């Protein structure tokens, strides 16, 4: 059933008792052409694009818990493509363009709201770095504008732009096409779209092993039995190392916990996404009215999906320093997600050194905005058994080749990115 105001009205007449399931709940088949491990936004998007663009519909998405229960449901919902390095810029811009048409494509309102992402600067050195990034964006065909202090203040009235701040704001880089989206809806929308095209979405099915025949993958062991597969795509950010280890592969990454928090819901007060590299916080207000903020990692390896208070305390200190009015608002909910932190801060999206095995992981802080783009590239890579030019630079062997994609220049310390 197509979703629209008309179908909503029609269903209202039957008291909403005739809405079909958004996706089926099938039993796993013995074999598929492609098995995607991980039922988050990325895995579901890969399945959707495999079916939609490559005509591959004998596809299963295996999810160990519930759809979107990993980082898809545990992020700060920011979508942007304001990257310096060309491979990142082109990839994220492709993803952003997919976002722009996603609600229509999926017939599911993912609430992509291009409310602009402002990246504040506080020092002359940051202005230089931001300009370098913004100029690269423009020359790469991506929108970016420089905001003077006055323009920043006009755009974000409640921001403390006074010279008395500890790190006075002196300008900002804005990407107006950036914004936020409704994170859960992305998973559900892709699930519904993939299911409608014949993809089997199987929840509560944990992959416990990857079966190989020599150098080739032949299937996966799961808590619901063995499932054969000609090709297997891994999209389990946070747990990529564990899945790769099942195929005997070590990855250049560590898992770290990243926390985020929301306040109680309020009437609109912050209209854009505001980020500050100096304070390392990013802040936005959700459509529900909650002020949503995130920041740095807890800075230790963790698979726990929960962190400790000092990391959040630091985020909140930064947030109040930017927006002094936040001080009296109240923290309502906190959560943690497990990030694949790679050795250069950029993702790994492409082939693994086992035939028929692919990976979409290593997203560090940036996985949510990548969702459609990563699924699109992952599907392309699986269908063609070679990476698309958009994700060619995200190859696993780039570290050994010295073709590092280090946006921050922080080096081979995953927690530093």
């Amino acid at each position, binding site marked *: 059933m197509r*979703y*629209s105001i008309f179908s909503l*009205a029609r269903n209202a007449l039957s*008291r*909403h008792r005739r*809405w079909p*399931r958004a*996706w089926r709940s099938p039993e796993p088949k013995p074999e598929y052409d492609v098995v995607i491990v991980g039922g988050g936004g990325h895995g579901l998007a890969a399945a959707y694009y495999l079916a939609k663009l490559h005509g591959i519909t004998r596809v299963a998405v295996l999810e160990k818990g*519930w759809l979107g229960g990993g980082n898809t449901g545990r992020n700060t919902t920011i979508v942007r493509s304001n990257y310096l390095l*060309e491979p990142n810029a082109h990839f994220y811009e492709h993803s952003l363009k997919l976002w722009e*048409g996603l*609600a*229509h494509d999926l017939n*599911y*309102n993912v609430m992509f*709201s291009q409310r602009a992402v402002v990246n504040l600067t506080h020092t002359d*050195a940051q*202005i*230089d*770095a*931001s*300009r*370098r990034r913004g*100029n690269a964006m423009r*020359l790469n065909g991506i929108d*970016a504008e420089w905001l003077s202090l006055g323009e920043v203040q006009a755009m974000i009235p*409640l921001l403390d732009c006074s010279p008395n701040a*500890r*790190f006075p704001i002196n300008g900002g*880089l804005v990407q107006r096409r950036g914004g936020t989206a409704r994170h*859960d809806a992305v998973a*559900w*929308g892709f699930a519904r779209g993939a299911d409608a095209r014949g993809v089997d979405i199987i929840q509560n099915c944990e992959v416990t092993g990857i079966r190989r025949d020599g150098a080739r993958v032949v299937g996966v062991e799961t808590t619901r039995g063995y499932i054969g597969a000609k090709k297997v795509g891994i999209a389990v950010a946070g747990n990529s190392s564990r899945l790769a280890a099942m195929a005997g592969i070590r990855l250049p990454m560590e898992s770290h916990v990243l926390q985020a928090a929301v306040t*109680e*819901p*309020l*009437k*609109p007060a912050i209209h854009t996404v505001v980020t500050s590299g100096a304070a390392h916080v990013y802040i936005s207000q959700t*459509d*529900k009215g909650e002020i949503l903020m995130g920041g740095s990692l807890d800075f230790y390896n963790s698979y726990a999906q929960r962190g400790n*208070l000092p990391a959040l*305390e630091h985020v909140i200190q930064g947030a*109040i320093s930017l927006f*002094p009015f*936040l*001080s*009296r*608002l109240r*923290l*309502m*909910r906190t959560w943690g997600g497990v990030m694949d932190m790679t050795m250069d801060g950029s993702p790994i999206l492409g082939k693994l050194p086992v035939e028929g095995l692919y990976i979409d992981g290593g997203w560090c802080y940036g996985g949510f905005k990548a969702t459609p783009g990563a699924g699109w590239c992952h599907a392309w890579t699986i269908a063609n058994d070679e990476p698309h030019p958009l994700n060619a630079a995200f190859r696993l062997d780039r570290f*050994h*080749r*010295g*073709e590092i994609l280090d946006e*921050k*220049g*922080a*080096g*081979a310390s995953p927690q530093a990115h």
Partner: protein
Amino acid sequence: MNRQTHRTERGGRIDRSAPLAFTFDGVRYEGYRGDTLASALLANGVRLAGRSFKYHRPRGIFAAGGEEPNALVRIGEGARAEPNIKATQVELYDGLTARSQNRWPSLELDVGELGNVASWLLPAGFYYKTFMWPGSWWRFYEHFIRKAAGLGRAPVEPDPDHYDRRYAFCDVLVVGGGPAGLMAALTAARSGARVIIADDAPALGDSLLASTASIDGGDPMGFVSRIGEELASCPNLRVLGRTTAFGYYDDNMIVAVERRADHVPAPPAHCPRQRTWWIRAREVVLATGAIERPLPFEDNDLPGVMLASAARTYALRYGVRLAGRAVVFTNNDSAYEAIEPVLDAGTDVIAVVDAREGGPGGDALALLQRFEIELIPGSVVMRAIGRTVEGVEVRSLSSDGASVGDASRRMPCDFVFVSGGWSPTVHLFSQSRGRLRFDEERAAFVPEEGAPRERGGRERSAGAARGLVRLSECLADGIAAGADAARAAGFEAEAEPPCPAVQEWEDCAPVRALWAVPLPSWRHGKRFVDLQNDVTVADIELAVREGYTSVEHLKRYTTLGMGTDQGRTSNVNGLAVLAATLGAGIPAVGTTTFRPPYSPVALGAVAGREVGIDQTPIRRTPMHDWHAARGASFVTVGPWMRAQCYPHPGESMMDAINREARQVRRSAGIVDVSTLGKIEVRGRDAGEFLHRVYINRIRNLRVGRCRYAFMLREDGFVLDDGTVTRIRDDEYYLTTGTGHAAVVMAHLERYAQIVWPDLDVHLTSVTDQWAGAAVAGPRSRDLLAAACDGADVSDAALPFMGCKDATVAGAPVRIIRMTFSGERAFEVHCPADYGVHVWEALLAAGEPFDVMPYGTEALGVLRIEKGHVVPNELDGRTIPADFGFDRMEKDEDFIGRRSLERFRVGGRKRKTFAGLVSENGDAIPRGGHLVWNPTAPRPMRMFGHVTSSCYSPSLERHIALALIEDAADWKGRVLYAASPLTSSFVPVRITDHVFIDPENRRPKG
């Protein structure tokens, strides 16, 4: 003023001699000290307290504690305004102002209620299905959605109050000051353990303050006073009142917030508004109590529907008379305990509708008979009638609980007191990774006992938090838990306190699980499960129908339990309705995880004092005040403030920078370099260690000599450039970039301690111990000779890259002859306390040589002219070869060496170092990229980027440094430095990166 028309004649823990005036939505009312805002509103007969989130339905006060879903108000005005506060948690004070929220224009008449009219179009998740056409209109729709959403309005001014933090350590932490908590604290304290008891109310006692039982033959309040006095007399026990433990973190770190001044209009001078306690406890007793559940029936959200325990509390504790007739609707015996108190307070209880076919236990039954109250067993309240409650519809409930009878009976009434059973408050337990178990008999999730502690904290639950209902059990359980916790912490009580004798109902009937009143298929009234977020039974059923069947999907799709009450009264009912709709058992559905905070906590309290200007300490050099007094402007470099330039009166900054730079090239200048990182390296193997750290040879560095050196990360990229000076055979003095001091120090310590522990090396950070001034310019040696108390600073005694100790105006200094500006130059380092003294002495000695202080801007100009690199160039992505520094690399192991090999065997082309000269006289844009044709279609090829740019007063033109692919091939050719952000596109000629003195004669002369 309205006069407490609904107050009892006597009774309650309120101080009737202390009337307090307050306003709600501008109307003046009166209450008493001891009231909450909610009890005071009820005492004034106010029934309407708020509007719901989605449908804007009118709502009354529903509960008496932190579980309140409806009565959210904005407290205070101006900068001290605080939105979304539960009226049930506000201690009344004189002059309090409160306003209702989420309504326009008024609470009584709210345009948003149209949402309720159109609610048939707005089922759970409706927004996922619409607002998609036309595509570009989402922002337009969203604008209105955002306005309609949200609850309160945030204050816009900065918070005038401050917040404090304390750390505390104890053997036993007891959370909760109710019956179990009091006994646990008392028991643990008697064992000698250091005990902290945290209770979120202003006074201890919790449910004992509204209890009908008798303890030790007296009333429970007397018992609470006695225990309270004993606790107060224990030197090893601290009572934290008005303190909510909101987070249970790793290794028994419990964080709590103490409200120091929320019960007064404004904090007294110097008093923090709130204080956050970070409590590290050996053992924890969670005596967090239980929360009464509602019973969802049609229109169960009308003002007048209230939890039975709340009705009891308002009557007993606050002396509130809920005037009118009331029907009690329950599935358990506890609701009956409300009857006598509310009767005493003046409510006319006309009937009890009990879902249990057999009705209540004997004691409750006797009570009904005594007061001649009708019992309607095996029945349910089907619907509340009216805009506020005017009556109820009652029907029988089938024995399987799945349907209701056809006969309906209407009863006029003003209140419905509901009780759906009790849910233990397991939030903190769950936060400590305790597992929950569904107890069918108690119809509640309770902590799983004896669960392996592998993942959990060292905690135990006690009393109602463990699912116990009877007061005597809770008291005894508190004693046992207190003793257990003390024992686990290594304390054995000599004598546990005796369990108090309790007189309470003995003959009780078990609860009958009822999660929502069943609805015949032809009826469509709203049965609210989550009152705040307007989630109904039908919403849950819709979610299940559409496949959102996992608990988390349900929550996210319907917003069940996502409100500011955090689902206190809705979670369990919601789960159970989900399970029933799925036809599964409640344990199979499971629960959601609870995460901090237990209840909303002010961001300011979490942040403490490190906000605003105090966010990070400001670091200033020893000479900072001198610079400030000379009118210097300052620039932020990491945590440091550095003098940027010293404009003369009437001089522009640009002119000042050019003047300062020219002065250095012409005669002499002096710059404060105290912010450089400084590290002392000592030990027998110090030289060997540094040899392995730097790409350069260090082993052959002679005493009294200095070397410019690079250190890499193990991945081959440059970590820092700095200097190494050999002071003695076994002592070296390193300098690092200003921003890198801490990173380099940790890096060196890591290698010294972990990788090469066999080397005898000792590292000491001396950044703060040494001040530094660089004297640069053709006359710098003359200046130094005049300043150095007769020391020989001639070329022979102090050659380029040499070092010597001397004194300046009697102060000991270390002089290192090196240059950043490209001129003859000396860095003069001295103990930090002599910083100003030496600085002034150098300036005085330089007066004949026309010396002048210069700042970081001129320093930057000078180094760009000379082609020296800083972090703009060394941005963590560059290797020595990019700058031609690979000539320094030795053919022996050093950190990062083997990672460099891969760059020599093909792969992507690397950018290398070059200079740029503006062709048209325009400034070369910072952050610009080098392109062939700036008007080419985008995306366009970028050959490189500008790393640093300035106007060169020596060359009298704009120059820059850059990293460019195939820099050698581009030499002499012209590219554009493109900065679309600033609309600046400047033709630049590619040159060598050294603009002045390429033979490097000046520093050596």
